[in-house]
């Protein structure tokens, strides 16, 4: 009797859970075609721009319930490129990203809100310098497609503003601005 119960329960679980599992498609971030860009004030009169190139992660798309989709991104702190090698060394050091002690910057989404068919607001936990804060990014869904090798493609572009001092990065404020505008451009494949 107990065996019968177990078999029925297993079949029920299979019927109920599998479609839900199938609904979430997991795309992997393509590091070659993805980047995190930043814009930060300099000397209180202009802006300085740079990128992080060491990006990885996953985008889990729930087609049945898009608001349940998840984004998990990791960025290598020492991949910062400000287009000046001397400055990059300073940015990687203890004054800014402290890349030896905090090698990875992470973002893990926690909720999403639909603005339009192509725009979402995604809230998640951003961890920088060992400090985690909830942030909200405006995400443009750029669409899906097929790559040269037949792989499925997905494009997203997220924008968010943070205050670096919230994460304990206070060096050089206000000559180097506190507010940072981030653009996360993702091409993901499956």
């Amino acid at each position, binding site marked *: 009797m107990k065996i019968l119960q177990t078999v029925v329960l297993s079949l029920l679980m299979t019927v109920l859970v599998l479609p839900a599992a199938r609904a979430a498609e997991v795309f992997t971030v393509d590091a070659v075609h993805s980047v995190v860009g930043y814009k930060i004030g300099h000397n209180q009169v202009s802006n300085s721009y740079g990128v992080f190139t060491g990006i990885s992660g996953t985008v889990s798309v729930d087609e049945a319930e898009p608001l349940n989709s998840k984004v998990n991104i990791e960025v290598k702190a020492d991949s910062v490129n400000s287009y000046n090698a001397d400055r990059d060394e300073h940015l990687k050091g203890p004054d800014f990203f402290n890349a030896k002690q905090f090698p990875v910057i992470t973002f893990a989404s926690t909720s999403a809100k639909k603005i339009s068919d192509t725009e979402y607001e995604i809230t998640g936990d951003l961890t920088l310098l060992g400090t985690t804060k909830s942030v909200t990014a405006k995400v443009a869904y750029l669409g899906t497609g097929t790559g040269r090798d037949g792989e499925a493609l997905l494009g997203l572009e997220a924008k968010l503003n943070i205050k670096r001092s919230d994460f*304990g990065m206070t060096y050089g404020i206000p*000559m180097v601005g506190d507010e940072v505008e981030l653009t996360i451009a993702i091409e993901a494949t499956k």
Partner: protein
Amino acid sequence: MLLNEVIIPILGPAFFAGILWLAVWGPWRTAPAEHESPTPIQHASLALALGVGLLLGYLKLAGWPPFPAKTASQWLALLAIAWAVLGYGVALLEAKRGPRMAVVAALALIGGALQSQVLMKHTWSVPVSVLWLAVFAVLVLLASEALSHAARRQGGASAPIAGMLGAMGLFGSMLLSYSAFLGQLSAMLVSMMGAAVVVSWISKRFTLAGPGVTVFYVFYLSLIGHGYFYSTLPGWTAILLALAPFASVAASLPAAWPQRSWKAFFVSVLLSGALAGGATYIAYAARMAKVAAGGGSEGY
């Protein structure tokens, strides 16, 4: 900016230490004459002033560190409290050599482990971690005994000047190695050693020995470690800087030289200055090599 990032955090600790030392060691005190041993409270004031001074400077620059700390420099600020309290206690209780060395070794091992825990967890193998902790603890123990002995033998400004020259080299090397914050912490050591030089000129009894020189060397060695492991301080710069304060020990070796010898004083100053200068030059050369490799555009 100059007031909040340079004058108060860097000169503040020196004023604090200088005033405390003058109050305890001042020439108007009726305590021991020049040739007699310092009192326990005088010894205790050395560790207390350096530990609290560093903490005050750190608080002005970066605020209260969280507990548990997240970064090595936050741990250093928290450890400054431990070193100040334990150094004060050990000196006040006039602990014998064995227990004193046990306390110094234990705190050096704990402090070294806390400041390098990220590397110990994610980068280093167990043997490398053990080796680093052993080197750290041995250097601190050596400093606590040998530097103390040299400071007592040479007296006066000799030990503070050797410490100040080493810390100046550390300050310059940190700036050249892309770390202004570690440079600011190094500058606190320079200014506190400067205060010790001034106090030693005012009070002939003042001797930066015992817990004073131990606490100074712990902070100094910790910052060298931060620069090497977490910034880009070159290896040879780190080694020369770690050795610079020991110049006073080398200058104490000739047995023919009497206590408080001018010859020993000059040799100590010249040797520590040469080591610190050499260390800074290596950091400068490394920086220039990086600039050249990156396209030759220095400054930003």
